[in-house]
Structures are given as structure tokens and as C-alpha cells.
């Protein structure tokens, strides 16, 4: 059974089968294209149509009244292929390209048209979808995403295509757009129409653009549903992207965190990750459950996001039981998390500190030499990673031995002494459920300070009992230096000093290997007086030749000799003590800022 259409050809009505109609339609359109720009095109076409009607009549005479594909092909054989119609150019003869004679060739050739029946703006993506055999919906989604992702170059490309690509506004064009077989004459046609198209394209595009509003109103309902679909797809993409980046963050965080903790405890045989958890929580089990709870709380919503994203994007269905069990799991994950967090929070509730003072033997020359106790020597089996010179030792040096936790996080600061003596004040801090418990913990903290003649050795390592757990135990040393007296920072002191204030805002690392004298304003290096008021501040404090002999490399080598008990006495510093500082100038804040900025 075949569907027939009615066609009026030159005043005669024919019943014509659908495929025959399409072929004839395409045939006529292609002939018409041959006469693009020819005067009297309409007349020629009506003559040709008249002849075709005549031929049909002859052929149908005495037969059925339905024109078939065979009839159309017969007519095409008599009339010739569209390229034969070129003005005044008769067919080159049956010997030329015989395979193109006869009915429409079987060659499949697709053309890129804009699709007027599936268009949002100019129909470019609709046509492109037909051309590459893809649902234009995806192209629109991709276009919106790419434009939003600031691949803005797509917009001018779109407009260019809108101008250049013809609208498939008749049946044969639409067939061609979908890749129906068409003969080679189309290539010629494209070339011939090209120039015309560029000329007319802009005005045509402007007209079409003006009509978009109308079209949108007309197709509002259909468009609305498609828009909803596109928006849901966009949401799907966005959700998946977010979920993906979040899970990436979670995974790298887990791996990085685990690795970091493992690294911090790598040298210890008895402190694994779980043991570390046990040092924070009441028990290792609680730590494990807390970790499981936290990971589940983060991971389950991510799984949910992925499911939602895929559901929006691909219309997949998530089974109900999956959603329910995920929700239940997530709610359940709160229990161990809250249990652990509450226990931890309770024990961190109060902070307290203990202040003690170490008795110091006052240095004879008025210079106290500051150094650190060698950590590696003290604990033998492990060492604090100080060789990078960095201060990030919060977890570094973490170690459990003989029921004690060791950690290298004590810090030393320098202040002006209230009297004429050096003092070393030690403040030990800890947290606890009550102020009393916190105080008890603080008192349990062990630290080490030694004095060997004029050398003060401070250990960055503090320790406390495993039973005390981690409760933010910390030790702050404050060295009080009387005005007019000095300290010399030996290379080892790099490991204990932290952010020592001085009048030139010199960084800790640059303070090493120099003598610093206490003035009423703070610590000052007399060999490097502050610049005068109108002097240009260079920013960087460059070490002098003398100082550079004690710069980092030397310092590091000194530090790495663990057996050394006393550092060699520097031979240049003594003279500086008595020298009076040059006129002090209050630096405006702006200059201080500039100085800070100029620092490496």
C-alpha cells in the first residue's frame, strides 16, 4: 500500500505516489536551481512543467491515474538531468557520464541546511543535528554550556552559519538535509548560490532574527517543554560536574590527609593511623567510627548528586530502595560522628595554662647565645624534619615512646625585660573538660631547657603522657632580654624561634647568625641601623660580608652535627654590643609596608 498525493502540474491534477512526488519535487527544485539568476526562470519552469504534465498524460493514458516513481524516472530520462538544462548547453551526449543519466542517481549526499521545523534561533543547530545525525537537543545543551564556559567564539560562528547556511524551506532541501540521495549538480548549485547567499544572507538573517519573537510565541508550548528538558539537562551536567569535583576533592583530601599523617608518624613503629586517632579520641574504636561516620556523611550526598545528575541528563531511573537506603545510611552516619565529636568537644571545652620561669645564669658579656637542643640526639630513633628550614612542624616529629607522646612544637619569642636581667618564661597550655583538668594537663607537659655557660639551649620538643591525649598541648617560651643587652641567634635556634619582633621587621630566617640588641623600641641589629627618614628604603636587608659566612648553608651544616654540644663562639659580634644605635626614626606605616613587600 502506498500513500498518494495530489499534485497540480500546469493545471492538470495528478494522483502521485509519495516517493514519486518527493523525487519529482526534488527534480524540479534542482532544475530551478540551474536557472538561478537567469531571466525568465519562471516561464522556463512553467514550460517544463507543462511538458512534464504532457508526458505524464501520455504515459497514464489508458492506465491507472496514479503517477509512480517509474513514471517520474521515465520523464527525467526524456527531459534530462538538471545539469542538462543549463542554458544553451545541450547534453554532451550519452557517452558523457552515463551513470548519471536516467532517474535520480543513487549517490547519497547530505547538505547542511538550517532546519525551519526544528529551530530555536536560526535553525543552525537543528540543521546541524540533522546533518550529523544527532538530536539537536544535545547540540543546544552543548552550545549553552560552551558559551557559558566562555567559549564565546561560538556566537560569531553561529551568526556566520546563520548567514551562510541556507534554510531548507522546501521539501527537496529538507530531504537533502536528512541525507536523501541527490545528484552531483548540487555541488555546482552550492557554488553558484554561494555568492548570492552571502549578499542576501545578512538581510535575510536580520529578517529572520526579527521574526524569532513571533516564532517563539507561536511554538510556545512545544518550545516550553523542550526548554524545560534543556534546563534539566543543563542542571544534570552541572550537578555531575559539581559532584565530580567534590568527590575528587574528597578523595584527594583523604589520600593526602592519610599520607600526611602517615608521613608525620612514618618513623614510629607504634603509631599507626588508628593509634594516632586513639591519641585524640577516648578509644581507637571511637576514632575509627568517627572517621567512618565523617566519610559517609560526605560521600553519601555525593553519590546522591551523581545519581540525580545522571537521572536528569540521561533519564535513568534510580530504584526507590537505593534512595531510601542511602538516606538511612546518611542519617545513621550522624550517630558515630556526633558521638565522637561530642566526646572530643567536651574534652576541649576549657583551656588553661601554667606559667613558670627558668632560672638563668646571666651572661657575662651581656650577650646570650641562643641555640636549640638537638632533637635527634635526645630521642635517638627519630628526628624532626628540620632540614627544610620550614616551620611547619605541627605534626612533624610526632612520636610515641614509652607511653609518652613527643612533638616538636614548642616556640620561642623574645621580649623586652622589665628589669636588667635575662628571664626565660615558660607558658604551658592545654585543654580539658574543666579548667582544673586543663591545668592538670598543662602541668604534665615536659619540656627541656639547658644552659651551658652563655649558651641557652631550648628544645622544640615537648612531651606528655599518652593518657593525657592530644588536647592542644603547647609550650611558649618567652626570652626576656634587658635593654642594652644582646642575644646572638645561633643556627640551631632556627628550630625554636618563631616570629620574633624586631625594629626592622626582619624575618626569622634572616635573623639567624646575627647579634640583636634590645632597645626601647625592640630588638635591633646595631650593624644594620634603620634607614634615616628620607632615605630610600630598599626593602630587603642584605646581609653583610661577615654575616654571609654564617648564612643558611653553614648554619645547616652546623645543625646537622648531632653530637655538638656547644656551638663555636662567633668572633665578630662582641664589638657590636657597646655601639650606640644611630638616631631612631619612627617609620611611617607605609614605609614599613613597603619594606615588608620588598622582602623575598
Amino acid at each position, binding site marked *: 500500500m502506498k500513500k498518494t498525493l495530489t499534485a497540480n502540474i500546469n493545471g492538470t491534477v495528478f494522483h502521485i505516489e509519495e516517493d514519486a512526488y518527493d523525487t519529482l519535487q526534488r527534480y524540479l527544485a534542482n532544475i530551478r536551481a540551474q536557472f538561478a539568476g537567469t531571466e525568465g526562470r519562471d516561464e522556463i519552469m512553467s514550460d*517544463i512543467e507543462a511538458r512534464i504534465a504532457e508526458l505524464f498524460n501520455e504515459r497514464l493514458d489508458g492506465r491507472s491515474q496514479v503517477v509512480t516513481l517509474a513514471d517520474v524516472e521515465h520523464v527525467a530520462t526524456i527531459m534530462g538531468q538538471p545539469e542538462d538544462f543549463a542554458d544553451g548547453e545541450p*547534453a554532451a551526449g550519452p557517452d558523457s557520464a552515463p551513470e548519471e543519466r536516467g532517474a535520480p542517481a543513487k549517490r547519497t549526499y547530505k547538505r547542511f541546511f538550517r532546519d525551519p521545523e526544528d529551530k530555536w534561533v536560526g535553525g543552525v543547530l537543528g540543521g546541524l543535528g540533522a546533518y550529523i545525525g544527532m538530536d539537536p537537543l544535545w547540540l543546544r545543551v552543548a552550545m549553552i554550556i560552551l558559551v557559558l564556559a566562555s567559549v564565546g567564539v561560538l556566537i560569531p560562528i553561529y551568526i556566520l552559519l546563520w548567514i551562510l547556511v541556507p534554510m531548507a524551506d522546501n521539501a527537496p532541501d529538507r530531504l537533502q538535509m536528512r541525507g536523501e540521495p541527490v545528484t552531483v549538480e548540487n555541488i555546482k548549485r552550492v557554488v553558484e548560490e554561494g555568492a548570492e547567499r552571502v549578499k542576501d544572507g545578512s538581510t535575510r538573517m536580520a529578517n529572520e532574527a526579527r521574526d524569532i519573537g513571533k516564532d517563539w510565541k507561536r511554538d510556545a508550548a512545544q518550545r516550553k517543554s523542550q526548554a524545560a528538558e534543556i534546563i534539566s539537562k543543563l542542571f544534570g551536567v552541572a550537578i555531575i560536574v559539581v559532584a565530580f569535583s567534590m568527590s575528587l576533592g574528597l578523595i584527594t583530601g583523604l589520600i593526602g590527609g592519610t599520607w600526611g599523617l602517615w608521613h608525620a608518624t612514618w618513623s614510629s613503629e607504634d603509631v599507626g593511623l588508628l593509634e594516632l586517632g586513639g591519641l585524640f579520641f577516648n578509644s581507637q574504636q571511637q576514632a575509627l567510627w568517627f572517621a567512618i561516620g565523617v566519610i559517609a556523611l560526605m560521600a553519601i550526598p555525593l553519590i546522591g548528586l551523581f545519581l540525580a545528575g545522571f537521572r536528569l541528563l540521561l533519564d535513568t531511573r534510580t530504584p526507590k530502595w537505593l534512595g531510601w537506603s542511602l538516606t538511612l545510611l546518611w542519617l545513621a552516619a550522624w550517630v558515630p560522628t556526633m558521638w565522637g565529636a561530642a566526646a572530643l568537644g567536651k574534652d576541649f571545652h576549657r583551656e588553661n595554662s601554667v606559667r613558670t620561669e627558668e632560672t638563668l645564669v646571666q651572661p657575662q658579656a651581656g650577650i646570650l647565645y641562643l641555640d636549640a637542643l638537638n632533637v635527634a640526639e635526645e630521642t635517638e630513633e627519630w628526628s624532626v624534619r628540620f632540614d627544610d628550614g620550614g616551620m611547619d612542624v605541627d605534626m612533624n616529629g610526632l612520636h610515641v615512646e614509652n607511653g609518652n607522646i613527643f612533638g616538636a612544637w614548642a616556640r620561642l619569642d623574645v621580649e623586652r625585660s622589665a628589669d636588667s636581667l635575662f628571664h626565660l618564661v615558660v607558658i604551658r597550655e592545654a585543654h580539658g573538660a574543666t579548667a582544673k583538668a586543663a591545668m592538670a594537663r598543662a602541668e604534665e607537659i615536659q619540656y627541656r631547657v639547658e644552659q651551658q655557660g652563655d649558651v641557652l639551649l631550648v628544645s622544640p620538643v615537648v612531651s606528655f603522657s599518652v593518657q593525657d591525649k592530644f588536647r592542644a598541648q603547647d609550650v611558649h617560651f618567652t626570652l626576656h632580654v634587658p635593654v642594652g643587652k644582646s642575644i646572638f641567634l645561633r643556627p640551631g635556634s632556627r628550630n625554636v624561634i618563631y616570629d620574633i619582633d624586631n625594629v626592622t621587621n626582619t624575618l626569622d630566617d634572616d635573623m639567624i647568625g646575627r647579634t640583636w640588641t634590645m632597645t626601647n623600641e625592640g630588638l635591633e641589629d646595631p650593624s644594620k641601623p634603620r634607614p634615616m627618614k628620607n632615605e630610600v628604603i630598599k626593602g630587603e636587608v642584605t646581609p653583610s660580608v661577615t654575616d654571609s659566612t654564617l648564612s643558611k648553608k653553614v648554619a645547616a651544616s652546623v645543625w646537622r652535627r648531632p653530637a655538638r654540644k656547644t656551638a663555636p663562639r662567633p668572633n665578630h659580634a662582641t664589638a657590636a654590643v657597646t655601639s650606640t644605635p644611630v638616631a631612631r626614626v619612627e617609620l611611617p606605616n607605609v614605609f614599613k609596608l613597603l619594606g615588608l613587600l620588598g622582602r623575598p
Partner: protein
Amino acid sequence: MKVENTKAQMRKGVLEYCILSVLAQGELYPSDIIVKLKEAKLIVVEGTLYPLLTRLKDAGLLTYRWEESRSGPPRKYYKLTTVGDKFLTELDQTWDELSQAVKKTTRKNAQR
């Protein structure tokens, strides 16, 4: 240079001349013209004729009138105008000269 192109060029000029000559014998409608041209093997497909007729008509060499047909819609009957008649006479002369020239110069005739 392709032989097909040359052939087409030669036919192109001759075809116009022949259409005018056919119409000089009387009023005809396209299908009749086609029959005669096909007999002479001047054209192979009919499509070639229509643009030519229109062009000759637009040049004022031909004119047509509508005539009712027994078997279908009205047909266009073409005939020469006076301009076309003069044009044809000139072409006749040119053709005679040309055919003489061809006779004298072509290889097969020269060999005789």
C-alpha cells in the same frame, strides 16, 4: 581542452539556427520541435529546448500564442517574428559560408 566542451560549443550555435529553421516552416509547439530535433539527433534530452526557446523569444526572434488542446491544457505555439525571419536569413548566409569553409578546410575533404 575536452572534446565534449568543443562539441557542446559547436552544437550550441547550430541548435539556435536549427530551431529558427524548424519554425520557419510553420507554427509549432515545443513537442513538435523536439520531435524534429530528435530526428536530426541534435538534442538528446528535451530539457535543453525550453531555456533556448525562452531566450529566443526574449530576444524578439520568436513569439507564441496559446491554443486549446484536445487532450489537455492549452499549448504554446511558437512562430518566427519578422525580426526572427531576417535573423534567420542572415544565419542562412553565414551557414552557407561556414559550410563552404568547413568543406574546404577539413581534413577528409582536403584529402580528396
